[in-house]
């Protein structure tokens, strides 16, 4: 560890402490082996090459590491056969070759394992050690009461209940819930008994004009025998009536029909026509977390390290990744359209109501409410529909957990962000945030630098004092908003935005999934964006000069030599094609 102290160029966050460093060969999949030195802290793995031009740098938060494997043994032949193989959660692998003598590998393996998987070693996440300071406090972004007030709630039909204040009704729901005015807290308790994990139907969003609502919940506990629950049936009827329409309540079950039926075997199921004559049920055919996980795995196989060359399109199709995206978007469009047309209120659930349900409600809300298309609005949306309503980030991502093969892991949130990206690609002026914003969210979904995505529920987060002891990702983002702002954003109020969920328009998000490949050109900054920014600057400059000129002219002072640049000179900055 001689290099460490002198080397000022190795980035370190306040609160980040060194652990070890070592000479290695980085087996770069694109440019071959690179000799370098790797530095490990409690937050990151940092590699800098030596004797190469340009210098190769790797800067990897330990949180992205999914799996660390030893490759080769002490007796292995071949130079590249002994070292470490690191699988990351962000679509890449890292391989380091090490000297085959002394226990050179053991130390680094142990250190890495310990700090990459702190939860498996009774260590805290780096987020709890992070001492960064930001000008904005991201924890202030989401205040449920403010958000509901923004929606015009509570009103004469919908009330705020504190029944879950201590998470007594449902430990995976937020403490503050919005429910029909005509349902008592006692009713809610009875309904909770009939909904998987007590996740009762509660309001997510209300249409400002037609008062139709998006409700979310988990599946009803129907079971094989087809149990019924009068309270649940009545509760759904109250919801139906709350928007003043006499039409049926629309229930979207995100699952494929067969899966919903199969769930009966384990006590779950769906709302039958007999029990709920005033409801119409549709299945949206979105597959489960295991299918999504396998699909992403296949996608990685065709893009990393090599981009499948000969049969790119059919390979892409065989991963089904974009088809899943299409189904999720299609489902969300249906939800949004139903609510927007005002024909009826909508109830969305899957099995537990924290994966597919969150995708659908938050996408539908993004389509219907332009507030969520702003930077802060989107943060609120994620905070509300995902974080507070108990999307199990800890289980789905496996933060700090060494069990890489855990069947609970699944890229549900990534899939959601991909859907958002698809929308922003189709409507490049409708979102205040840019691609970098989405990529940054995904990067810190894994990094464990912020408390934002840690733990499975508000209940646990409160217990762990996350808001007191960690920083919010939104602090980072809101402190340098310009970096994440889309210059083309055009504010439009109350415009429903329906993407076209056709494969003709869906694209693989190359800048995310294939970003490690140096052959994929990432024109950063985007030339179209750059040109626009130049024009904006030019316009502002002209306006300023014009104002000056007008002042000068008005005061009748002839300016023969005052201005240095003549207008004809400036004219050459702008090409005129007209």
């Amino acid at each position, binding site marked *: 560890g001689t290099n460490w102290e002198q080397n000022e160029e190795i980035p370190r966050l306040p609160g980040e402490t060194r652990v070890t460093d070592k000479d290695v060969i980085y087996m770069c999949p694109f440019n071959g082996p690179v000799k370098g030195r790797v530095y490990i802290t409690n937050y990151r793995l940092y590699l800098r090459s030596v004797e*190469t031009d340009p210098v190769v740098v790797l800067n990897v938060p330990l949180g992205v590491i999914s799996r660390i494997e030893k490759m080769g043994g002490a007796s292995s032949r071949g130079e590249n056969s002994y070292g470490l193989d690191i699988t990351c959660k962000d679509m890449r692998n890292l391989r380091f070759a090490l000297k085959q003598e002394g226990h050179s590998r053991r130390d680094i393996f142990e250190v890495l394992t310990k700090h990459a998987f702190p939860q498996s070693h009774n260590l805290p996440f780096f987020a709890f050690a992070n001492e960064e300071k930001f000008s904005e406090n991201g924890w202030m972004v989401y205040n449920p009461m403010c958000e509901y007030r923004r929606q015009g709630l509570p009103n004469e039909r919908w009330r705020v209940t504190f029944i879950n204040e201590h998470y007594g009704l449902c430990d995976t729901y937020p403490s503050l819930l919005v429910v029909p005015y005509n349902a008592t807290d006692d009713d809610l308790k009875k309904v909770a008994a009939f909904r*998987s994990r007590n996740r009762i139907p509660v309001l997510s969003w209300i249409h400002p004009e037609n008062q139709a609502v998006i409700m979310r919940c988990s599946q009803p506990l129907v079971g094989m025998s087809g149990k019924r629950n009068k309270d649940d049936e009545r509760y759904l009827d109250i919801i139906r009536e709350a928007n003043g329409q006499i039409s049926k309540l629309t229930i979207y079950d995100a699952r494929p029909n067969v899966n919903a039926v199969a769930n009966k075997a384990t006590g779950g199921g769906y709302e039958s026509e007999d029990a709920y004559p005033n409801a119409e049920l549709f299945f949206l055919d979105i597959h489960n977390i295991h299918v999504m996980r396998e699909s992403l795995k296949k996608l990685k196989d065709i893009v990393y390290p090599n981009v499948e060359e000969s049969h790119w399109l059919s390979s892409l199709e065989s991963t089904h990744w974009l088809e899943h995206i299409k189904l999720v978007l299609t489902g969300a469009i249906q939800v949004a359209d139903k609510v927007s047309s005002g024909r009826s209120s909508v109830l969305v659930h899957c099995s537990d109501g924290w994966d597919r349900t969150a995708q659908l409600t938050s996408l539908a809300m993004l389509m219907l409410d332009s507030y969520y298309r702003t930077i802060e609005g989107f943060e609120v949306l994620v905070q509300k529909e995902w974080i507070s309503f108990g999307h199990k980030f800890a289980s789905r991502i496996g933060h700090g957990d060494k069990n890489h093969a855990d069947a609970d892991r699944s890229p549900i949130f990534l899939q959601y962000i991909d859907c958002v990206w698809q929308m922003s690609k189709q409507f490049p002026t409708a979102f205040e945030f840019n691609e970098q914003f989405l990529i940054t969210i995904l990067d810190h979904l894994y990094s464990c630098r912020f408390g934002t995505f840690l733990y499975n529920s508000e209940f646990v987060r409160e217990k762990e004092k996350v808001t007191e002891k960690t920083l919010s990702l939104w602090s980072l983002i809101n402190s340098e908003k310009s970096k994440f702002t889309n210059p083309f954003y055009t504010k439009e109020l109350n415009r429903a935005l329906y993407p076209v969920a056709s*494969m003709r328009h869906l694209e693989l998000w190359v800048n995310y999934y294939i970003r490690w490949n140096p052959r*994929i050109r990432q024109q950063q900054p985007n030339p179209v964006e750059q040109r626009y920014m130049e024009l904006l600057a030019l316009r502002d400059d002209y306006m300023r000069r014009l104002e000056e000129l007008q002042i000068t002219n008005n005061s009748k002072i002839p300016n023969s030599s005052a201005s240095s640049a003549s207008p004809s000179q400036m004219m050459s900055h702008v090409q005129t094609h007209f």
Partner: protein
Amino acid sequence: EIHIKEPIEKEVNPHLLPGELLLCEANMVYKYIQEDGSNRGTYGKLICTNFKISFLDEDSASDDNEPQFKNKIIGENDITLQCVDQIYGVYDEKKKLLTGQLRKYPEKLIIYCKDLRVFHFCLRYTKEEEVKRIVSGIVHHSQTPKLLKRLFLFSYASAAPNNTDGRNQTVMFDTLEDWRDELERTKGNVKYKVVVTNEGYRVSEKLPLYFVVPLCVSEENILKFQGRGIPIWCWSCHNGAALLKMSTFPKEQDDNTSQMQKAFLDGIFRTISNPPYELLKREDLSSSLPSLQDIQTAYTRFKQLFLIDNSTDFWATDVKWFSLLESTNWLEIIRRFLKKAIEVAECLERQHSNVLLIEESATDLCCVISSLVQLMMDSYSRTKSGFQSLIQKEWVTGGHSFLDRCNHLHKNDKEEAPVFLLLLNCVWQLVQQYPPAFEFTETYLTVLSDSLYVPIFSTFFFNSQHQKDTNMTGESLKTQSGPFRFLTVWDWSVQFEPKAQALLSNPLYAEKPKPDKSQRKTTRFKHQRQLSLPLTQTKSSPKRGFFREETDHLIKNILGKRIGKFIINSSDEPHNSFREFYDSWHSKPVDYHGLLLPSIDGPEIKVWAQRYLRWIPEAQLPGGGTIATAAKILDLMEEVQSLQVKMDEEHSQAVSRDVQAVPMLRNSARLSSLFPFALLQRQSVKPALPTSTWKDLEDEDDLVKRDDEFVDLSGDIS
């Protein structure tokens, strides 16, 4: 079943061009609005002239919502006879292809166009006599063989008054001076010369009047085999290396002749390999690229994917979209042509080697490759006039058989192959990968592709310069006052008003900076390899001897034979030099005025959505698509320009003149992604919803059936 407005028997007069004659017509034809599978539509009159098929409805008379981007020659309900791809008749719900003589007349007519529009006409309410006349008229005039002189081109040229000479700045390459200038521009005149040997077409009718050959090639040599076996100059690279093309000798020959030919060729190669000429790399395109037949087959399959009858069709093909696309092979063909062009560019640029493209006639694949190479290497050809001059040089004067390849005369289906369209598709890939590098837009390319089927321009309606020259005078002299004066497609004012023409110019085009290069360098963005999140570029640290042996050995191993899954693209040798060339270029920042290489990785080769999806209502994004950002840029440019005008006024203290920039895109915020095409009548707010989705995941069955988390809930209820 059909709900429509009461048909008004109102006389609508067709808009006819000079020389255009009405041949037949039918009233009470019902045209479906191809939108939502409903039977909505309008009644009107269907006519067929010697130029076009046209549907006239009463609405077309009103000019209330004049589209912003209107073609002055072809209206939205006009189909030129050459633009008709296929005609189907519907008999009892069954579609039948209509080609020649008809025994039965259909109740519905579907016309598929080469610009991918689809028209559905219902003839059920039309008088039988009129049905017979219009259907057989349309089929006859658009689908059966035709004499060249019967092309509308000639009637128009003789009837149109005072045709403008719209050459603009496009170099036509029909004079000696044009070639001399081009030689001078590229500094090719040191080693190459223009020859006049073909004056009077003494050498060959396929070759242009004037062309360029190496200095050492004699007139005698040129004459010997009718210009075959002669390297003909296309372009010279800044380092002096030249791109040449050559047609081969006909294959079936007796031994004697082929011996002679071989000796002749050897002589030619020997001469041009001597100083001042350098290395000559020969590229036999017919053996290394897809054939014309492959191109035709692929495109025929490909276009079918976009000729959508209705919404059900659209969503049914959506499910397997990527594999359908792949199975057409069209994108793969684009990829292979781009790749070949990069290989040729590498020879010229890096190896300083002359490249000789060889093909039987040197007028098909040669044209594609030589054009692409010039577009990649010569920024002049990325300007509008440069591009048009390039098309003149390589294609029009160069002798590409447009008439046969487009099958304009329906003479021989076997000759048909969309070679020029392939070029435009390849150029589009470059345009979308490097938006600031081109002076023209994708809309320019789209309307250029549409112009292939507009027979008022001579540009795409002859097989060679000779054919044009001989038909320009000839018999017509007897009846006419003089030779025909044809229009060129490059006179865009014939088709578009200035405000529509503005959409052909790229507002992002980074014009070549004039003198101060030094300043530009510093302001340019520095390209970085993104290897990790925040990337810090630092100077290399002091060398240390650590691991030297191991690494060296390792590197040898890896770069040697044992290349595992680790290194991208580990195939054969020539391939590697291509890769190396591409990678080394790619690692530097893009110079939009320098060499420009397309990325040809799978995800980078895309479908030219504007051309192919523009008429499909399901594919449209109201207020979305790339036009949304382009419109904002145009709006802003307009604002900046008006500020410039105001500043001028302030400077000169002149009274406010009424100088206004052309208003570009009003209410641009809500343009459809299909703009400027298919101006939507569809204002509905209903989202497009897939009607058929994919559900089965056979291979993953066990996963599919699993629950998200297996927890038995049945216990919870008690």
